[in-house]
């Protein structure tokens, strides 16, 4: 594969250096701390709904008001939870991960991870807290 010149500009050492940097560890931690538990949560909630629909149809058929029953409300709740999680994720990414990612990208572009030592500066506000 011939790769575009711009991508060869970063050496494997720079990537290793960047990967080992504390700000990258923090970026990865923030990303995973949100994405992984949330994925487990919405999959569990979805599977619970599927299992209830399959093995507890009588419970799902319990009327709540008029012809609207528990099953329909739980189904609509799946829509609501999907919209809410989407919103939470976007807010999390904007506030917590994008600032670190943007800052690291700029540093990588100016080769601040080249050549040994930590070319990193944690004092820049956005990587904190």
């Amino acid at each position: 594969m011939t790769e575009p010149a711009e991508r060869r500009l970063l050496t494997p050492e720079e990537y290793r250096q960047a990967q080992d940097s504390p700000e990258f560890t923090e970026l990865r931690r923030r990303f995973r701390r949100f994405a992984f538990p949330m994925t487990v949560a919405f999959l569990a909630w979805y599977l619970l709904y599927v299992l209830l629909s399959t093995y507890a149809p009588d419970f799902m058929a319990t009327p709540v008001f008029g012809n609207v029953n528990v099953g329909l409300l739980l189904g609509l709740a799946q829509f609501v939870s999907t919209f809410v999680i989407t919103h939470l994720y976007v807010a999390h990414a904007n506030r917590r991960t994008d600032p670190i990612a943007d800052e690291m990208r700029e540093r990588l572009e100016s080769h601040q991870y080249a050549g040994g030592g930590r070319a990193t500066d944690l004092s820049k506000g956005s990587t904190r807290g």
Partner: protein
Amino acid sequence: MADLSVVAADSGTIGSPAVNISIFGAFVVVTLVITFRASRNNKSAADYYAAGRNISGTQNGLAIAGDYLSAASFLGIAGAIAVYGYDGFLYSIGFLVAWLVALLLVAELMRNTARYTMADVLAFRMRQGPVRTAAAISTLAVSLFYLLAQMAGAGGLVTLLLGITGEAAQALVVVLVGALMIIYVLVGGMRGTTYVQIIKASLLIAGALVMTLWVLTKFGFNLSALLGDAQAVAVEGRDVLAPGAQYGATSTSKLDFVSLGLALVLGTAGLPHVLMRFYTVPTAKDARRSVVWAIWLIGVFYLFSLVIGYGAGALVGPETILGAPGAVNSAAPLLAFELGGTILLGIIAGVAFATILAVVAGLTITASASFAHDVYASVIKKGQVPPNGEVRVARITAVVIGAISIGLGILALQAGLNIAFLVALAFAVAASANLPTILYTLFWKRFTTQGALWSMYGGLITCLVLIIFSPVVSGAPVNPATGLSPSLFQDVDFHWFPLNNPGIISIPLSFFLGWLGTVLSKEKPDLDKNAELEVRSLTGIGAEKAVQH
């Protein structure tokens, strides 16, 4: 094989074929003009495969909705709700929740690390040849299943809406649809296809909104009254408001439903034509924005489908729907005719055809890109291809795949399978063959080539074998109403796998094989490549830039 022409002769068509054809014709003319205009900017491979990465997040969100809201969503889900009630609704929930997997775990990271195809990421830190070949094979398999579903939908629509009954004439219509699709792909590339998707998604969502409001007006915006009427005319003894009408019969069918639910929720993030859409935007943030748009559009559309489905049940009645050509898939068009007569039916029919055309074009460009980029350029030519050689091969492949899908479409005309159900099989293949490897590649440092190959081939082969020996292909009990078995082949029975959907076996097995292949392999993971993949995926450094024109 079922003979649709006989069914059609009995019940006839609805609406005016002339109106239906002219509305669809107008869509074709407008989109062709746009496609030709878009083609002026098609110069490089990035233009052809990824629309120059110049599509905005909002536009791409609409295009994703256009890709995703296939004939299965529009016709299949509304039909399933009309006839089986609640169980049809379950489909749409799985299809929607699945987008969270794409949003949280896949979309942005893939955008940051890939160039044109799914295999770009999967092969990133592995041995290129074998992994790219495996990814290309599974891309082709998923795309062909999906194509089959779309073409089956086209078959039913043709009979219902165009008043075309002879098998030869129906085949001619499928050939025309296929030829049009090839033109979109050859001329417009990804950019042209994207515009077609955007127009189609807008029309589809607007059409569904009109029908939803119309149905609700008839019931004074009282959901409970709509549900009550749908229940009153339901097939005798069937509770369409609670789960179980379609899947609750036996313990096997219950397990089948859990299997389906798993395939739906895990399949989306492994669909190659959905993944490829993430490469058409300039940055990972636009990829995120496009998924957010897609989730809202798709979610709202499925809420419309709920009303349309129960509306079709209440106003048209399940017996009329099941008696019409195209059976379950004809619920939405029949409701349109019931509400707005010839004109609304014409619009909805035109939109439904446009849906099939656009989705088929999206699938074709994905499959052809995967063959040209992964198999031809990377494996056969080892990266030594002349400028534009790859795109030329992609165009030839698009014609070949177009021809195959025309052939499949003509076959699908003769078998009356529910489209949503065929799409569910495509999701099962995507969830088994692709998703485990995508997640391991992005998140597990030790993952190796052997793990990737075991997971992809293991998932794909298990899935295909279980489908071949399932009641989908042979041995499902004969339906007393039609005198036919819902299986693909009549009068033979070689099935031993009891479930229609293989997901519950094949997905966990594929995850397990990926782990086993990795821990048993002697190969050391490439730590340099792993660092590059991880840093690029999370920071966006080195991501492909938009093409400047």
